[in-house]
């Protein structure tokens, strides 16, 4: 079960304390999203409760926000620390499932409260790996080395390296890989991606996770769809290349590029396994952790395939 708290900036410390017990709970995945960024949210699925902090917002804005979540049939609750809305019933008439004001947040909210909402609304939690997302504030600006954060990881590996080497020789192959890498770096930079590791024909890119969406998925799809064009226009020596992309969301301690040798991360390990051992095919493969955060339209572009190392895997339908 996901709990997403859409907070007003100055209320973040209060809300972090109030939701402390729920954050610690293994039954829920929690994430905090800034109110100003929440407009970009494509509401997820029926496995998420959104807590909207409407403290200090204009009545019109708050109502608009509530209607947006209600229209999508999503579960949402209201936080109003200043009791600025007198007609609390209006929220419930619009299908809100909870209401919190300042007095109710003096003590941490118990898990039981969420369970009561789930019971009331008939929410049956989907079996999923439980995460505690550590969202960096302001994306890369908020990331400090040695600290742990949640990232979206994108693994990419050029296939048939032996064959390519036979055709163009190792020197030209290196140039080809370099040109491809440069293109991918420039492309993914547009969605806040950084090349974190690159060894031979394999790269790992990371994107600070915003708690709600995975914008890099569209560039990953573009890389797959445009493979022929990319091979001819953006890499040297006119040879067509095939590659495989794997994506996952997880936590790791951040170290700058080049100083990643000491990082021990189960999440990175399993991503490399997914990228290198799951299949010999080219294409785009994502874990359920990424799939969960895709909007409904994007989800339709993916097919459920066999699980791998305890995780459900989805593959992009088209090539």
């Amino acid at each position: 079960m996901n709990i997403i708290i859409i907070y007003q900036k100055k209320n973040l410390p209060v809300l972090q304390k109030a939701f402390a017990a729920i954050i610690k709970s293994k039954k829920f995945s929690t994430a905090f999203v800034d109110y100003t960024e929440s407009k970009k949210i494509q509401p997820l699925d029926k496995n998420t409760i959104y807590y909207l902090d409407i403290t200090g917002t204009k009545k019109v804005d708050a109502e608009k926000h509530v209607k947006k979540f209600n229209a999508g049939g999503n579960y949402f609750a209201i936080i109003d620390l200043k009791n600025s809305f007198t007609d609390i019933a209006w929220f419930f008439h619009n299908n809100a499932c909870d209401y919190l004001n300042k007095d109710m947040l003096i003590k941490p909210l118990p898990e039981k409260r969420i369970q009561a909402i789930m019971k009331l609304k008939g929410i049956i939690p989907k079996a999923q790996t439980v995460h505690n997302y550590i969202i960096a504030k302001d994306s890369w600006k908020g990331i400090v080395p040695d600290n742990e954060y949640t990232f979206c990881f994108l693994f990419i590996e050029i296939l048939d390296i032996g064959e390519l080497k036979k055709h163009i020789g190792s020197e030209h192959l290196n140039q080809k890989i370099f040109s491809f890498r440069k293109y991918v770096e420039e492309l993914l930079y547009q969605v806040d991606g950084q090349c974190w590791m690159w060894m031979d024909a394999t790269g790992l890119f990371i994107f600070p996770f915003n708690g709600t969406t995975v914008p890099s998925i569209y560039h990953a799809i573009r890389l797959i769809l445009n493979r022929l064009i990319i091979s001819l226009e953006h890499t040297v020596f006119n040879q067509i290349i095939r590659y495989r992309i794997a994506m996952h969301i997880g936590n790791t301690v951040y170290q700058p590029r080049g100083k990643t040798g000491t990082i021990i991360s189960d999440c990175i390990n399993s991503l490399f396994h997914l990228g290198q051992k799951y299949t010999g095919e080219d294409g785009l493969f994502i874990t359920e952790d990424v799939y969960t955060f895709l909007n409904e339209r994007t989800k339709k572009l993916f097919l459920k395939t066999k699980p791998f190392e305890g995780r459900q895997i989805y593959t992009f339908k088209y090539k």
Partner: protein
Amino acid sequence: MKIPYSILSITEKALTKSMDVHTMERIVKSIIPNYNLHTIMGFSESIPIPNKDAAAQIVRDFSESKLFFKLVHALMEAQEYGIMGRRYPIAHLHEIVGEIINLGFIYDKNNRIFIENAKARKTPNWGVLEEDEEYIVTLLRLDIAANTQLVRKYESPLITQTYNSLRSIVTAAVEQRNGRVWNWEGDGCIAAFILGNRNMSAVCSAIEIFHELFLFNYIDSELPEPINIRVAIDTGYCTYKHSPEELKKTELVTKILELESKHTPLNSITITNSIYASLHAEIANKFTTTRSGNTVYYIYTIQWATP
């Protein structure tokens, strides 16, 4: 566009130092056949014109950008290939070319012309094509299928928003490959490519447009049904016209409009033999041959392979 005095001054020096008046005139006549230095300067044919004065007059007459670029190009040719079998090393040529580049132009080796640097500005004629002159151009014609029905069926703001998104997709794909969208009307557009491997550029643009449209239809579009398109690509001589209406009357444009409307199935790219011949084998393999009378066309229908 006026050429800055500093460049004109170096060019004048270059002419003076590199050749005699007779050679200058020969070069100039290759651009303006009836150019007569003696008549222009008021000298009788029997009186020799001093080198410096002749160079100054020529540079003055060529100081407007389009002619000036032709003059510089002629000097480059004189240095590289020579005139009547003799090569002329041109003093300051590097400086002149450098200054032109600083003005926001690049030299296209394939077409041997100076064109505007797309990073600095983008105009439909690349800053150099001239009205009524013929150029070898590759044209891409895109048509929005069932445009009339869509416009009647849906509210105007929704259609405008959808078509604007399509327009952005097309413009990005075309301009990324240094092509230009020459004409955009309600139901589609014509884009032109003149630089580099222009046929490959046009075909790659078309493929990218289809891929982006696929994502748009699936992810972003608010229209309840997908937008479908047809694309035709052909190459040949085309007389450049600033006016889109005049452009439509040119032979190549008429031909490509017919190729799109009569020989292009839905969500397909149709190309002619001359385009097909210049494609990379892997791209060419995507096209299937079709015949209409004596003419052979190649069609690539976008179909998605599902695992």
